[in-house]
């Protein structure tokens, strides 16, 4: 069981979290073409290696957070945006 470094709760078992995957920027809903919008819905990079992903601490603080995870080894690090948030 991986530990997810929750920036608020500290390291916790991955089972406490919901995996939300690679964040995709949301196109302008009034201007997006079908290709752009469906790219946002369906296309992800599916990287084999380190990537950024979003998790939700469902059983804990109920905050969304970002982590860097290597998808080949499941090594997890806090995302740079959270580093230094809490000391």
């Amino acid at each position: 069981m991986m530990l997810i470094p929750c920036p608020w709760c500290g390291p916790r078992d991955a089972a406490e979290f919901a995996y939300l995957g690679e964040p995709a920027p949301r196109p302008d809903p009034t201007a997006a073409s079908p290709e752009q919008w469906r790219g946002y819905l369906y296309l992800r990079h599916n990287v084999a290696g380190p990537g950024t992903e979003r998790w939700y601490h469902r059983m804990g603080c109920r905050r969304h957070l970002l982590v860097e995870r290597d998808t080949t080894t499941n090594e997890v690090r806090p995302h740079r945006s959270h580093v230094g948030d809490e000391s």
Partner: protein
Amino acid sequence: MVERGRRTGPRPGRYSALSLLRHGVTGQAWPAAWRNHDMRRGYRVVIIGGGVHGLATAYYLARNHQITDVAVLDKGYLGGGGSGRNTAILRSNYLTPEGVRFYDRSLQLYRGLAADLNFNVMFSRKGHLTLAHSDASLRTMRWRAEVNKLSGVDSDVVGPADVKRLVPHIDTSDRPRYPILGALYHPPGGIIRHDAVVWGYARAADHLGAHLHQHTEVTGIDVSGGRVRGVRTTNGDVAADVVVNATAGWATLVADMAGVRLPVQTFPLQAAVTEPVKPFLRTVVVSGTLHVYVSQTARGELVFGASVDPFASYSTQGSLEFTEGLASHVLQLMPSLSSLRLLRQWAGLCDMTPDFAPIMGPTDVDGFLVDVGWGTYGFKAGPVSGEAMAECIATGRTPEIISSFGLDRFARGELLGEKGAAAVGH
């Protein structure tokens, strides 16, 4: 890889009870099931992925279309990916008419496969039982059963008493949490020896002239002028008119080499096997609600599977929580198995699409075809996929049976409705 040409001898002899007897008496060695070849500078068709899909494609190209200038490349050994890691369940009781027709054709090919390939793939028609624990799942099963029946597939909703009769070890008493309200029963479903399917196709494809190159990894795909020109491999560059991506777990990585993006995310799918016990489970039992499916092999082991892991990953290490969840769900259904021991767990990689249906056929790059996105149900589609992809390659047209599985459906927003039946419905 160093070419090892020492086995270029006679083509494999026919297998039969008689030949077994003859070899037994004479002590004569069996010929190799397939041969090693030098890599040619070019092939008409290069198939990436030596699993059941790739090998079946090579076989049907030769058998149905007389195209034998074909190479199947695998970065490891034959059937080392999803083909060797699945739980070998066959069924055709899907939810959409497209799905039902497609998988029914696959089951039909599977039934005749042993004779067709002269290799006993040990298809065991055990029947397939999908349990309903709620009104909602019973309703979906009725829906599936009715679609199946209209497509001529043997499938029906049965009650708890029938479940009990088919599987006496299932607890159908009035338990509060996951009562058994009924099940979708699909008598033609069953299990097969997955490795044998791979080996049978490999042997037959080799026999008909295709080249199988194991331990040959594709490192690049050459595309120019909008069409594919060949592949680069750890065993040299190979020109090709047609390149087929028949990989699982690496589908997006291979497609990226050709500049094709796929709506696919890779998730591990875990499975496990117990120690053998005397046969008691004659039917494949599935509970979608409890995310578990179980069958007993002829060797007496119980083989378990589940839904894919809760997060995307290329790691096949497996997890403890998978076995914990599995065990608790199995015991919800069959409490008296508590002292049975889990022996081994493993994981394979599944390429999940947004609509739980595969992606098959041409791409924007001419000559670069895909047979990917197989999620958790690729093995059962092996024969029909090979047959359809072979036709697609040979005729240059997408066969009707896979016409709804095209890559362009996502950009059009026209997803297929298989999610309800495919998510955990093994």
